[in-house]
């Protein structure tokens, strides 16, 4: 696991509109735009037994952006997110696709723990939120949700979403030593080779060495079922 990647983006909550509107980071005192910003607080709780979640990747966008589709070849950014837990390429792709705002989590979220992030976006008719994170003791499993509708949330409103588990389809679920970046193995993260079905699907789960697969580096603690995590979204501004 490359921890440097996790902290590379740091805690950067930013709005694309501001990026172009002003060069300093003191946005709150820029009276011109304050009234047009929506702010959200999101908290993700890891519900798994022993699957730390990689730093969250979050974007607010309209219906022109889709991070993944069942049955469709995943982007390089999604592959990197699902194989090594990095958010950089995934969010760069989102920014290229014109999302309103994006943010990366501070670090891994361990089982039973939570992380809270804030994200601001200029107000738009369509306000959708997409979130993704790797289950780092797997070959290429990720959790997340796409295009959660924020448009009807008033300030103070909150909604809760349970996050299912997907398979990026870019790396075979062989569970072999050296192939899994999380603490269960400390193996390889991203590999450009795609030796699996190469389309996104729901994840079939892991077999583990407690269930007759002696070569698996995973043990019973690494098993999981859906949902993987709980997301609570609150509009705060």
């Amino acid at each position, binding site marked *: 696991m490359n921890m440097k990647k996790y902290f590379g983006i740091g805690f950067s909550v930013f709005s694309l509109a501001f990026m172009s509107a002003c060069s300093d980071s003191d946005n709150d005192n820029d009276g011109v735009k304050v009234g047009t910003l929506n702010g959200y607080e999101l908290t993700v709780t890891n519900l798994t037994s022993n699957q730390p979640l990689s730093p969250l990747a979050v974007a607010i966008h309209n219906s022109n952006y889709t991070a993944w589709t*069942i*049955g469709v070849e995943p982007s390089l950014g999604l592959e990197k997110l699902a194989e090594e837990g990095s958010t950089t390429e995934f969010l760069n792709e989102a920014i290229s696709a014109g999302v309103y705002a994006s943010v990366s989590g501070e670090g891994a979220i361990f089982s039973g723990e939570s992380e809270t992030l804030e994200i601001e976006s200029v107000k738009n008719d369509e306000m959708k939120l997409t979130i993704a994170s790797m289950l780092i003791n797997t070959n290429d499993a990720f959790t997340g949700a796409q295009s959660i509708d924020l448009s009807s949330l008033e300030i103070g409103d909150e909604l809760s979403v349970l996050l299912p*588990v997907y*398979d990026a*389809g870019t790396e*075979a*679920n*062989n*569970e072999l030593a050296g192939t899994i970046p999380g603490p269960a193995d400390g193996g390889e993260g991203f590999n450009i080779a795609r030796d699996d*079905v190469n*389309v*996104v*699907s*729901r*994840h*079939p*789960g892991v*077999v583990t060495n407690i*269930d*007759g*697969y002696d*070569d698996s580096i995973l043990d019973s603690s690494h098993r999981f*079922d*859906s949902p993987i995590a709980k997301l609570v979204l609150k509009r705060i501004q």
Partner: protein
Amino acid sequence: MKINSILAMSALPLVMASSIASAQTLDVKIINLTQGMYFTPLLVSSHDASQHLFESGTVASVALAAMAEGGDISGLVSASEALGAVNSENPANGLLAPSSSTTLTDFNTGTNEYLSITAMLLPTNDGFVGLDSWEIPEAAGTYTIHLNAYDAGSEANDEIINGGAALGTLGIPADPGANNGTGASGVTSTETNETVHIHRGNVGDTDSNAGVSDVDSRVHRWLNPVAKVVVTVK
């Protein structure tokens, strides 16, 4: 399964609910969410409140068992149509591969107010994806439903791939994806719940020449839901 639309419907006054019986036209998109499981030819059926293609906790009909054990929907088609169902048979024109989808357009349900869906899961002994009597909303709109995998309870899950598709013949017909092994000794020879129930999942193994199962535990398992259905009421 949490369906806001059903909750909304149940809040309608009865007098309105009883006046629904006008023809509805639907688009039905069915997405196989799994990474390694195939759906045999789908049956999409609209019917009245008295009918079920299957019901959890009840013994499978012969027609349901034929679908679940061998993918043969003809029995379900004839039995349901005799009771007034309007069906769409095999909208995917064959197998619906893992992670692929099919869309049935302009499905006219007549006066039928309920929607059901079945297809066998391959490779399994008698597993199937199912929707039992979803009440079709009156209001035009798009509705999303997630479907679970069921076990018909009619055949032991021995997980031996031997071409056994016929009713009452033990074994799995085939793995269309050809990721299977051979020479398995069999996971079990008994079915402990002989009613329709939530499937416990394939056990599988990683031995392609022997072991207890001919299915691969790394490829042929699944977690619910196994399908997503998007119904557009026009």
